[in-house]
């Protein structure tokens, strides 16, 4: 199997693991988890240097600024063995490392606590700045939601990232065009996002966020003295036809026949 096919298969496996966890918990964000599944797979299984494990000071860092998509990240951490396998059935339960939003103090492998939107972008920017001050080559990858960009703090951080010439920082915007209350352009329009990010001093690439080949090659790009922004056009709920582009799957839970169909479309069978 070539790399691309291997990564595609991994992404669908992670989607199914995510579905397992959310069905077990009875709540969680499927739509936003699925839209970033291919991006997170490319990062953790192809691009990021985490060979030294989750505590290696020289590792690349990952920040899930849209913290509500954490089930897909937990699926990765389980698969990597950073978290014991028996944590899988504990999503959102009392005492679990898999809190409703990622908390680094209880979950190994989480590089940054998030959940309050906008903050991961700011903290990730500080991490990139700190790594440069320390003379390290490590890179910082931040996945942010498009709705999240409503938060003013994001733009404070973007200004700082270009001011400090953080070419070790990559912001990946999950441009699925949907937020809780509806379409991003109806609710609070972002307009020409590429132009906005360029005007804030970023080198910007626009890609199909489900084309795992172009995700990898774009994530590897570095622009000297310039932070990198990837606008990844994605489909919320990607991988399960009835969930795709439907805002009710932001936090909805499939039932009955829907469950079987979801696993079938992802190429597997229901585990539960």
């Amino acid at each position, binding site marked *: 199997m070539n790399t691309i096919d291997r990564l595609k298969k991994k992404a669908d496996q992670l989607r199914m693991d995510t579905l397992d966890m959310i069905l077990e918990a009875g709540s969680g964000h499927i739509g936003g988890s699925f839209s970033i599944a291919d991006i997170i797979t490319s990062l953790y299984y192809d691009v990021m240097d985490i060979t030294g494990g989750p505590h290696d*000071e020289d590792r690349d*860092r990952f920040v899930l600024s849209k913290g509500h998509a954490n089930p897909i990240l937990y699926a990765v951490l389980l698969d990597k063995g950073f978290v014991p396998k028996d944590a899988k059935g504990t999503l959102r339960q009392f005492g679990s490392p898999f809190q409703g939003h990622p*908390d*680094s*103090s209880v979950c190994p492998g989480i*590089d*940054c*606590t998030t*959940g*309050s939107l*906008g*903050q991961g*972008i*700011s*903290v*990730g*920017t*500080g*991490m*990139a*700045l*700190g*790594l440069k*001050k*320390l003379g*390290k080559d490590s890179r910082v990858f931040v996945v942010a939601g498009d709705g999240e960009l409503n938060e*003013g*703090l994001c733009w*404070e*951080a973007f*200004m*700082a990232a270009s*001011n*400090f010439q953080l070419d070790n920082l990559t912001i990946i915007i999950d441009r699925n065009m949907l937020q809780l209350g509806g379409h991003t352009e109806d609710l609070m329009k972002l307009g020409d996002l590429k132009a906005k990010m360029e005007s804030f001093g970023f080198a910007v690439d626009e890609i199909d966020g489900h084309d795992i080949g172009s995700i990898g090659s774009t994530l590897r790009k570095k622009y000297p003295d310039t932070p990198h922004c990837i606008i990844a056009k994605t489909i919320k709920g990607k991988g399960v036809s009835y969930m795709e582009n439907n805002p009710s799957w932001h936090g909805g839970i499939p039932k009955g026949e829907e469950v079987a169909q979801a696993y079938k479309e992802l190429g597997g069978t229901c585990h539960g």
Partner: protein
Amino acid sequence: MADKKATRHGFYDGLVNLARKHHDIYAVDADLGSATGSSIFQKEFPDRYIDVGIAEQNLVGISAGLARVGLVPFCSSMAVFVAGRGFEIIRNAVAYSRINVKIVGSHTGITAAGDGGSHQAIADMAAMRAIPNMVVLSPCDYFQAAKMAELMYAHQGPMYIRTSREPVEAVTSLDDEIVLGKAQQLCDGKDVCIIATGMMTVLAIEAAKALHEEGIEAKVVNIHTIKPLDAIGIKEAVLSCKGRVVVCEEANMFGGLSEGVASILVEEDGIRFAWVAIEDRFGQSGATSVLLGAYGITKENIVRKAWSVIQR
């Protein structure tokens, strides 16, 4: 009498001294270095000074990032802005996962004076105290502020220190040990216990001297650690003064030291309690001495409150 000096300068003099030995110390500011006192750090360590511009949310977020990769950031702005505008970032990006960020809020209380009510932090102590995992410090003079830099560096985890613009007389020295979470007795007495923090401690000592002239022996206890508050030390001090206590803080009366002390004493019998604090109103512009008088932040008011609990 020693020169009057402000805690905002004491803290950064202490930090600069410490940063000569410890190269992981960084200062982060939001374009207020000349006001907070951090510009002295910038002068000596330009490569370890980060100015994020006028953006207090990002000030805290960037600092959390620096701490996450192993640096020890001290981030500062006027307390109104860093503890106010930065509050939710402090809560979620710093305190929630116990990230090692040190927060410095300057211009606390009404002694921010001329800038007016918009700049006078009167709720910062209450706000920071309400966050789990947060340690809250409030030095009483230049030397205590200078020593606190060391204490903050040695402690692993989030901390907030409130400093003041107003130069005050020194009542401690660099030789006086500061133990985190321990009340510090500065004058002994048995008739009334005056508990104070920040620039109020100097006034409390002056009030104790005035009371001495009137035949009253006042104990003065300085609280440099607002959280964790020294419940045992405070109880002992107050009970040794017949349960008579006056709490003094340059902050709003709600949520700060006064209510903290009251909560410790609430189960004790025979407590007679009074406070000298800002009585739930905003500050305003004015000469410092005029403002202090208008808001009752005076030696005379402490003496009056002391008599009120003695005669009650």
